[in-house]
């Protein structure tokens, strides 16, 4: 398709009243940053429309970038015509011929904000359709249920011709819902949860708990790679790596085996909350999914969630595993998530974790753990932060640098 322009549509945004401008601007900033590799493309606002002027940049590549923009409900590649009948007709014919698959039926829809154009809308509608029909012998007009709607918009300086409508991701522009911490394990669920929260306008910082030396550098690289995928939508993601080994081993010595997971999750939640305060985030996003494992029954979710007053966002809570996997495949995290490295949750898994932890027992146990507060503080202090971008080159862990000289 030989598009000159791309017409952007915002969907839900239009409901947002006075905030509309702010939201729109956030999204355009996001688009602008994604268009950095295409310096000739320009964003323009004209009379209620937002357009990308391609100026020769390849449509297909820009289209791919727009597929990563939250808040965009749909967009259309537009061909430009001069303000004369011949040019409009020829461009319209070209647009119809470029449709893939070729439509069997179509209709023309004309808008004419430029009232000085000599033909009015019904007249122009007829003039365009009657030019196309004899030149596309397979094509019929169907005004009720056409395969394709060819839109012609006559504006003050030029006319636009478009038909294809590409769905965007929808949701809200990045960052317009504030910031939250994502508890990122390395499994299938948490990256999907993070992506869905991001689509709702949440800016994310990821928190990952590792049990070095029991978990490997590979497990860490895996989480970095997952953040890299999320960064394709967010530009960059800050990743906080929490050293959890000490807490984990001490809990294992002192806690009832069937409550170990609950106590571990409570400790993780507390650390995440403190990191949230430190980084001015106002929520915690988790990949929890009702009933999936012992720690995700309602009693467990209650026992774990009650340690924090921050809102816990659980985008996957009622989804089916298959739906989750479908999203994971779509955002390309699935292949990374299924790599078989131990993470801190698969380490020391008890045989029979409780699905119905007794709150009173838990509170008593924690009361006796006078060491816990110091350990939590230390874990927060020793947390290592990395900035992950979508380009894998920059996401090497530091040990990789001397390697470059060898290659």
């Amino acid at each position, binding site marked *: 398709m030989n598009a000159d322009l791309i017409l952007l549509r915002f969907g839900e945004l239009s409901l947002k009243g006075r905030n509309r401008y702010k939201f729109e601007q956030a999204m355009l900033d996001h688009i602008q940053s994604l268009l950095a590799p295409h310096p000739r493309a320009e964003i323009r606002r004209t009379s209620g429309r937002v357009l990308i002027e391609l100026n020769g940049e390849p449509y297909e590549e820009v289209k791919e970038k727009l597929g990563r923009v939250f808040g965009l409900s749909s967009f259309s590649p537009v061909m430009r015509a001069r303000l004369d009948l011949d040019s409009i007709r020829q461009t319209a014919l070209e647009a119809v011929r470029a449709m893939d698959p070729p439509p069997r039926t179509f209709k023309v829809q004309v808008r004419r904000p430029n009232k000085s154009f000599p033909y009015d809308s019904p007249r122009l509608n007829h003039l365009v359709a009657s030019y196309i029909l004899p030149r596309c012998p397979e094509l019929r007009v169907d005004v009720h249920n056409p395969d394709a709607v060819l839109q012609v918009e006559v504006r003050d300086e030029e006319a636009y011709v478009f038909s294809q409508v590409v769905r965007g991701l929808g949701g809200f522009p990045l960052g317009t819902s504030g910031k939250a911490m994502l508890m990122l394990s390395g499994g299938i669920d948490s990256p999907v949860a993070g992506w869905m929260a991001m689509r709702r306008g949440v800016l994310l910082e990821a928190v990952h708990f590792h049990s070095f030396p029991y978990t490997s*550098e*590979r497990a860490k690289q895996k989480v970095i790679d997952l953040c890299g995928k999320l960064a394709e939508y967010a530009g960059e993601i800050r990743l906080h790596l929490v050293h959890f080994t000490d807490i984990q081993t001490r809990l294992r010595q002192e806690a009832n085996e069937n409550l170990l997971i609950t106590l571990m999750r409570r400790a993780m939640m507390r650390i995440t909350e403190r990191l949230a305060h430190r980084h001015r985030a106002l929520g915690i996003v988790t990949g929890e999914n009702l009933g999936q494992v012992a720690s995700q029954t309602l009693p467990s979710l209650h026992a774990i969630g009650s340690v924090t007053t921050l809102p816990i966002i659980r985008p996957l809570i009622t989804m089916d595993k298959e739906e989750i996997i479908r999203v994971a495949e779509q955002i390309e995290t699935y292949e990374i998530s299924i790599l078989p490295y131990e993470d801190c949750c698969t380490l020391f898994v008890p045989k029979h974790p409780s699905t119905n932890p007794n709150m009173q027992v838990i509170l008593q146990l924690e009361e006796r753990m006078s060491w816990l507060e110091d350990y939590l503080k230390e874990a927060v202090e020793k947390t290592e932060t990395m900035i992950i971008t979508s380009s894998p080159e920059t996401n090497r862990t530091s040990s990789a640098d001397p*390697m*470059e000289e*060898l290659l």
Partner: protein
Amino acid sequence: MLYFDHAATTPPLPEVIDSVARTMAQYFGNPSSLHRLGKEAETLLRRAREVVASTLKAHPDEIIFTSGGTEGNNLAIKGAAWQYRSRGRHIITTQIEHPSVYECCRQLEREGYEVTYLPADASGRIDPEAVRAAIRKDTILVSVMHVNNETGAIQPVEEIGRMLRNEPRIIFHVDAVQSVGKLELEPARAGIDLMTASAHKIHGPRGVGFLYCREPIRLTPLLSGGGQEGGVRSGTEALPLITGMTKAFRLAAESLSENRAAMYRLRARLVQGIGDIPGLRLTGAREAERMAPHIVHFTMPGVKSEIFVHALEEYDIYVSTRSACSSGSDEPSRVLLAMGMPPEEAASGIRISLSPQHTEEDIDVLLDRLRTVAERMRALQKQGGKK
């Protein structure tokens, strides 16, 4: 000493030796081990694969590390022929391939495959039309080298690749051992499915190379084992050799156009000089762009190649007769016979192969010695004639 046998092997660059030594000392872990040393080795291996892939604009998963050109060609040809035998059992190749391709095809013939061996024209070039004409319904593989290792003739692999795009069932293999790092060839753009490369032809270490294998093509492995290299090439990865190779390919890719221009200048000087020496006949096309920048080949009918090689050796100049892998035999060259040369001439081929580090003075010394040796040989021939 003047070493003019760079098509046989090249001296490794100091940077390459350094990479190999430091990898051996610092990254001795097995990339498959779970501990940190293994992880570091794996990361280095992954980086190396990315760098090698980037020199060909390929995806890292499309690079299979091998022990060199012979293994790469064996894996490509047998691996593809075995994997896709249910599609058909006909293979097209040429009469001028390296023995590691040629002998693979001979083996497959013994296993019941049919192989068409296309001849070359007098300039040593394969006609793409002949490839097209040889295609049958049951053809599964076409294997044509990029640069002939004996004559230096460039084969029209890009034209063949373009033509084979219309034949999605046929896999196209290119033995690019003599050209990788010297001539530009991006397999994905050229329609190539499998491409063999070897490190020691471009100042890398011996015993290592790679095979480009376009996704989603699968090959039946030659070796059974631990499933390294995506299951296609088992065996603990030779990380020191791989980093050394990566260094060599990267350096070659970075200075490819300068090196190519430098060698073409030297080649032009050498070709002109040889043309003026009575008794010597240049092989190949007159147009320089049809010949590889680093190889010059000539014959002296009636003089066995080996005698000529030893005569030059007396002056501390080292040249070659043909593929180092076949030069021990006394037979006329299979490649030259395939170009239609009479056996007497085909037994007299001399290959001179250059490096970008050679100078014009080196070429002039070589020409001087070639003239002397050729004169001596002609005198011997005349004496022989009198008897």
